[in-house]
């Protein structure tokens, strides 16, 4: 898979304080990259550098194979418009409507396509807001407008910093579904930061754990599941035979842990079927249990010992 973004020792220093230190990040084309960290870990600072809002103190990054450093260069012009951002609170003109806010940015980017704004409003679920001023929007609506502003210009990469903060469950679900849909339908790569790990675990394909300004670990969603995520814990008397049964059930993502235990990392809603099939094949099931050491647990485990 092609790498879309690579950072090399990216650092941001304020006086003596290093908010981000020597971060080597890798984002692949088509990823939904979840950047995980507690408040003050350096997530927003890192994303500001990638968005062009802040200059790195040292280090560099490559976007689409083009090198960016702490000096704005000709590559900046080439990349202009290929990255959309929503950093911290969405920026909007409060006395304008959603349409007017989107139109302002469209004019700046020279976008004149008919129905462009109407289609975008429909995508982010604000098609019925009419002339309502943004200052009268709910928090969820404002966040969706921020997402819409980030999507103007059909960027290849969209950077979202805490997009679900302050949203109710419905708002969170809407943002989540929109991200997944855009990633699937338009192949947009996302970098999403959040400290609400449960939500992030539902959409991210890859994670970067940042702690005290350092990137502690990068791992895929599959690796996360293996290392500490959701799994079916199966204790049987004949684990070798049990693996044959699992293969027949088309469950290939598993690991034999010890002489009795198999961990299965898929088919979480098929535990009844698994147990019944094992029984039919004369394999005694000693224990079957869906374990869910969450992303949160894994994150806490990885960051509790610091770097």
């Amino acid at each position: 898979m092609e790498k879309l973004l690579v950072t090399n020792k990216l650092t941001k220093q304020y006086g003596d304080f290093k908010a981000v230190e020597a971060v080597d990040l890798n984002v692949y084309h088509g990823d939904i990259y979840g950047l995980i960290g507690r408040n003050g870990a350096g997530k927003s600072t890192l994303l500001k550098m990638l968005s062009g809002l802040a200059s790195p103190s040292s280090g560099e990054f490559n976007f689409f194979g083009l090198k960016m450093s702490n000096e704005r260069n000709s590559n900046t012009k080439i990349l202009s418009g290929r990255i959309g951002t929503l950093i911290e609170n969405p920026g909007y003109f409060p006395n304008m409507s959603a349409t007017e806010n989107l139109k302002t940015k469209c004019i700046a980017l020279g976008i004149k396509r008919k129905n462009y704004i109407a289609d975008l409003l429909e995508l982010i679920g604000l098609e019925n807001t009419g002339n309502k001023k943004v200052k009268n929007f709910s928090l969820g609506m404002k966040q969706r407008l921020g997402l819409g502003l980030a999507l103007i210009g059909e960027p290849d990469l969209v950077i979202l910093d805490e997009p679900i903060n302050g949203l109710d469950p419905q708002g969170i679900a809407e943002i989540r579904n929109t991200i997944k849909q855009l990633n699937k339908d338009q192949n947009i790569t996302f970098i999403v930061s959040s400290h609400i790990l449960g939500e992030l675990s539902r959409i991210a394909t890859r994670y970067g754990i940042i702690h005290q300004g350092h990137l502690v670990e990068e791992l895929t969603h599959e690796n996360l599941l293996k290392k500490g995520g959701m799994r079916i814990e199966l204790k049987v008397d004949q684990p070798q035979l049990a693996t044959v049964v699992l293969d027949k059930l088309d469950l290939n993502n598993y690991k034999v842990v010890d002489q009795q235990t198999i961990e299965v990392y898929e088919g979480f809603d098929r535990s009844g079927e698994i147990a019944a099939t094992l029984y039919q094949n004369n394999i005694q099931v000693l224990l079957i249990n869906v374990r869910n050491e969450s992303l949160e647990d894994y994150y806490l485990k990885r960051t509790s010992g610091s770097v």
Partner: protein
Amino acid sequence: MLNLLKMETYRLKKTRSTWTILLALILFIVFINSAIYFLSQIDETANLNQQPEQTELDNVEVEIFVDESVDFPDDGNISADEYISTMLDQGALMLFVGIFVAFFITAEYKNGYIKNLASHLKSRNAYIFVKAIILSIFTLVFLVIYILLTLGMGKILYQNTLELTFNAHFTKYLLTQLVMHFGFSMLVMLVSIQARSLSLPIIYTVIASTGFSANIYALLSSVLKKILPLADSFDLGNYLVDARIIQFSLDQTDIFNQGLIVGIIFFFVCLILSMLLFSKRDIA
């Protein structure tokens, strides 16, 4: 750059503060002209001395300039150029230009909209240059409104006693005022970009337009003259655009060129500094 220009124009049309400031300017002009007219009709109008007051304070000479009263003849004719220049010399245009610049520049920081544009900017210098163009256009618009409305009010209040006479001298005066106000708008833009909040540029604008900064420069000049071998006539305010505007009037023909030069220098220096500041600093 053209797209940015279109965006700023669209934004200004839709922004409430643009129309509020324009309305406030119009109401101010109507009010001040009316007030001056009606006050001049009253026999006991205060007549302040035009000459600077001098005093000694612990061996430091201090010159304080005070506003002159507007005292139009109640018979005879008033020339339009004198009428307009008297209204213009109050510093009110400076106030409205400064307030407009402060709101225009700081709005995007305050509401965060600038974050939507930052990753799309091909050149941060172009972004500031476009703002300078917009501000210059609006400064011209403000001046034109000021002149036309003042003339209109003058015609209504003084009727046939107001003579519409324009000459080369007055044209040069207006051009100098315009260029100095261009320079002032760039200075307020620089202060706004540095501060990234509304309060500092607004406070500075109020201090400058009321003439208080001119008094500060006069005080500093007196101190400098004690320390350095400077001429008695040296005044720091002659070289600073805010004081230059306040101390400028139609009959000071000898300083027209100086006013033009100060305005031009401040325009370009403040513009370049604004570009440098915006390019180097983090946006958020």
